[in-house]
Every structure is written in structure tokens, then in C-alpha cells.
């Protein structure tokens, strides 16, 4: 949480309070506070904390079932949960299916226009700068998140989107966009963190396109809680929901080290030159391995993958590798 700490072991956020219980665990208290526009607008809505927790827990459980690891450990009370103690990554991840909000304003796209494919944006968490949009390269360059982790986070966000889009559509709702936060534990494993609730997503009625989320509050559209309750009721109405296990595709790109001769590259280079393509200095042949991971629910699978890359997929003496996720 980027939010300011109030005591040594307690952090007051805009809508939540976090108490550190141990190296492994924290308690998260869902308050009734509500804010928008970087806290420019603040209020309290009785019962909102409880409602948010219920919705967030419900969604996290669905994600866990779909094989997406989350910070949730147990529900402690109506307004508190016990979660993993994570270092929250300093970028927020926004997934968009339909143009709305800052996306519409920024690019002049009409609200409600469907995007060709789901789109992921990153926002750096910095209240003073009002959480600005940040380019992926800048995230990496500034050392906020390394490239492979950023890619993993993006792939995870798209997994979440696939699950939610399906889940919400069954309740007659359209998922317009939503925000996620991720954290990493001491071993560097990535978990979905924070809360996922009506506070952090835009949801419209599939028929009427009526807004059912926090936008009601942003634009003073009637009873905020009522909207939240509609989302909850509609999800309840689906009854038991069993999401599809989300696959992850990993691309291992293996490159020959520059200090090692690369006969395949040499021959290819000659071929290119003989074919009349000039201006070539060097050609090197490597390979890619595409791995479809059926179950990536335990973040430790990544450690295993790295180990296999070093021990089998590559010969570290003559090759290097990078991981990509999609």
C-alpha cells in the first residue's frame, strides 16, 4: 500500500487499514470511507466496508479457483480479513474492455466504445503526482518493477479479466474496466493483492448500460450502496460459479551467448549475403520454447521453471534466456 502509515505497524489507507501481524500475515480492515479523484472527494457510507469485503472475498475466491494466486488467507470478521504480508508493487494495473473514464478523456474515445482486445495500462502509485499513467519502459527503467515481473503481472491481469468477464456476463453485467494491485512476498513471488470491489471497477448493466459501480458516486448518481448491492445480488443470482482454470503461456527465449561461436547463425548469414542482402554484420540463431502452464496457482511454479531453464532448457555456459508471459 502506497498509503501513509499512521503507526509503526498500522497503515491507514483511503478506504482500508492494514495491521502487520507477522512477517507472513497482515490484517486488513475494510472501512466505510470512500474517496475518488485522489481523495479530493471524501465521504463515509455506513455498511460499505462490509459490502466491499464480501464482494472482494467472493471475487478472490473465484480467482483462486481459476488458478490465480491471491493474498487472501481467511475471513476474520465482517470487516476484516487475514492476508499475506506483501510488498505492494508501486504500480496499479488497469484492464480495460470498453473505453471509459480517464481512457476516454485521454484519447478522446467515446465512452462505451468496445476495444478491439482487452487493454492493460499501468499507473504509478504516487499521490503527489496524482497516480499518473506510466509507460512500461519507464516502469522498468525507474527500477519500479523488473521487466519479467511486469510481464507476469500483465498476463495475470488478463487472466483475471477473462474470469471476471465471463462471471459478470452470467449476471447480466458488462465489465468495463477494473484496477488491480499486486504484491510480492519475501521470495519474490507475485500475488494478487489489495481489494477487488465496486470501488475499483466499472460495471454496467448489459441491457440498459446503467452504471452499477463507484461512478455512481463520482458523478453523484444516486445511492452508491444500492449499486453495489445490485452487483452482489446479481452475482448471488448466478448461484454456484466454477470458473475455468486459467492457463498461462510462457515463452522462453534462448539466445546463444555472444562469446560463443554460433554455426547456425554463420551459415544463415552467408545465405543472406549470397541472396544479395547486404549490410549484415552478424546473424545468430537461438530458439524459443512455448510452454502452456495449465496450473500456475502456486507462485512457486516460476521458481521451478527458472530452475528447469537453467538445468535443462538452456546450457548456461553457452546460452542465456529470458522469460515472457502471455
Amino acid at each position: 500500500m502506497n498509503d501513509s502509515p499512521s503507526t509503526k505497524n498500522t497503515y491507514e489507507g483511503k478506504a482500508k487499514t492494514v495491521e502487520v501481524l507477522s512477517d507472513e500475515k497482515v490484517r486488513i480492515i475494510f472501512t466505510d470511507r470512500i474517496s475518488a479523484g485522489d481523495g479530493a472527494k471524501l465521504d463515509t457510507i455506513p455498511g460499505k466496508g462490509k459490502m466491499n469485503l464480501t464482494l472482494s472475498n467472493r471475487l478472490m475466491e473465484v480467482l483462486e479457483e481459476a488458478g490465480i494466486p491471491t493474498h487472501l488467507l481467511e475471513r476474520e470478521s465482517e470487516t476484516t480479513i487475514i492476508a499475506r504480508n506483501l510488498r505492494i508493487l508501486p504500480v496499479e494495473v488497469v484492464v480495460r474492455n470498453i473505453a471509459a473514464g480517464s481512457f476516454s478523456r485521454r484519447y478522446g474515445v467515446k465512452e462505451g466504445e468496445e476495444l478491439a482486445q482487452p487493454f492493460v495500462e499501468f499507473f504509478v502509485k504516487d499521490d503527489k503526482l496524482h497516480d499518473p499513467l506510466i509507460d512500461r519502459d519507464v516502469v522498468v527503467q525507474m527500477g519500479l518493477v523488473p521487466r519479467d515481473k511486469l510481464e507476469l503481472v500483465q498476463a495475470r491481469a488478463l487472466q483475471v479479466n477473462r474470469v471476471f468477464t465471463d462471471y459478470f456476463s452470467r449476471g447480466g453485467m458488462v465489465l468495463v474496466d477494473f484496477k488491480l494491485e499486486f504484491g510480492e512476498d519475501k521470495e519474490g513471488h507475485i500475488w494478487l493483492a489489495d481489494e477487488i470491489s465496486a470501488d475499483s471497477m466499472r460495471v454496467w448493466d448489459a441491457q440498459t448500460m446503467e452504471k452499477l459501480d463507484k461512478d455512481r458516486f463520482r458523478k453523484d448518481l444516486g445511492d452508491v450502496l444500492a449499486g453495489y448491492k445490485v452487483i452482489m445480488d446479481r452475482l448471488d443470482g448466478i448461484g454456484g460459479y466454477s470458473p475455468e482454470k486459467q492457463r498461462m503461456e510462457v515463452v522462453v527465449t534462448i539466445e546463444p551467448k555472444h562469446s560463443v561461436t554460433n554455426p547456425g547463425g554463420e551459415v544463415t548469414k552467408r545465405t543472406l549475403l549470397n541472396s544479395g542482402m547486404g549490410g549484415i554484420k552478424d546473424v545468430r540463431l537461438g530458439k524459443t520454447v512455448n510452454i502452456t502452464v495449465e496450473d500456475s496457482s502456486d507462485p512457486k511454479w516460476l521458481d521451478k521453471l527458472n530452475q528447469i531453464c537453467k538445468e535443462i532448457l538452456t546450457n548456461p555456459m553457452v546460452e542465456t534466456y529470458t522469460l515472457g508471459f502471455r
Partner: protein
Amino acid sequence: MSTIGVIRFPGTNNEWETVRALQSFGVEAKVVEHNQQIDDLDGIWLAGGFSYGDVLRAGAIAGASRIMKDISRSGRPVLGACNGFQILTEADLIEGALLPNTTTRFVCKWIYMTITENDSYLNELQGSTLRIPIAHFEGNFWSESTPENIVAKYSTRDGDAAPRANPNGSMDNIAGLSSNDGRMVGMMPHPERSCFKHQGSTDGRKIIQAFLKEVHG
């Protein structure tokens, strides 16, 4: 009588010719599957072929197998020919790596190799020039620095390790190497294919003889 195990991974294809070659020395030789135990073996031969189809890199998957850890721990003499050599380097039991030939084509031909001074059981053949066939796609030895445990170099008929005698681009004409303790030897040429008169050379017998001497202790 000593028992030599010829290890078979899926895709190994020199196992039976190797068994026949070893048996001609009067020792017991048998094919041992990669998922079997090696406790009863006195010597181990890693035969040629295409273990696991040589996907990824030649010998890579076999090199990471359990039996290679058992072999490493066993303390038994080991000879790896062709794919066996590739497996030994992939298992980090012998240094370096075997890259594709500089021609990027498979090469099958008769070569001469000369045994260099070394700390392995092949040292008794030091200075001998042997005529033995090769057949491989990845025999181009490479290491960051010239290795210390060279046992054989490609050479001319007269024992000159000249560049023109190099069939695959191998660093310093290296044809074979040993492990640091000299117990394991890997080489690209196929001694088991130059053991009988009909094969056109019996020079490979000298290599096998030296290996068996080490096995007998």
C-alpha cells in the same frame, strides 16, 4: 567377470553394436535402461544415438536424468561415445559444450585421432594415432578456455593435429576429454564401430581395451 552396462535412453541407438563390441572382449555387457539401477555394474558405457531425439540440445535431457547422478556418484569408470560424450558435458561431468558442426550438417566419415598425454585411463595410448569413424551433428567442442583434460585430438594420418584434419570446427581439434579425476572419458568418434575386421579398422579395440583395464582395476 566384469559387467559393463550400456545405458539406453529413449532414442539411444548404438546400444546393440556397443554390446557386441564389448562382448568380443569376453566381458559381460548388457543394455541397461535409463530408469534401472546401476549397482551391479563394474563399468558404464554411454552409447551413441539421439537420446530423447536430441531436442533442446544434444544430450541435454539425458544429461539432467537421475541415472547420470547415480553414475556420477558410483565411482565406476565411464566411457561416453558420441551422444554419450554430449550427455557427459551436459551433465557437467566433463567440461565444455558440443555445438553444432561449423558446416551445420551431419558428418559421417572416417577420421584419425591422436591420443594426447592425459590423466585418464587412455594415457597408456599416448601418441597413438587411431582410425575411427565419426557420425554426428553436434561435435564442435567449445569451452571458455582451453581445457586441461584433453585426451584425443583429430589429426592427420601422421598424428598432426592440423586444422585440415578437423571435421567439425572443434576447438583445438579436440576429439575427446576426460573428467577432472580421469575416471570418465567422452569422445565424438565411435570406437565400437572400429572393432571388427569387416568394419574396416580395429583401432577402436585399443580404446575399449584401455577402458576395460580400468574397469578390472
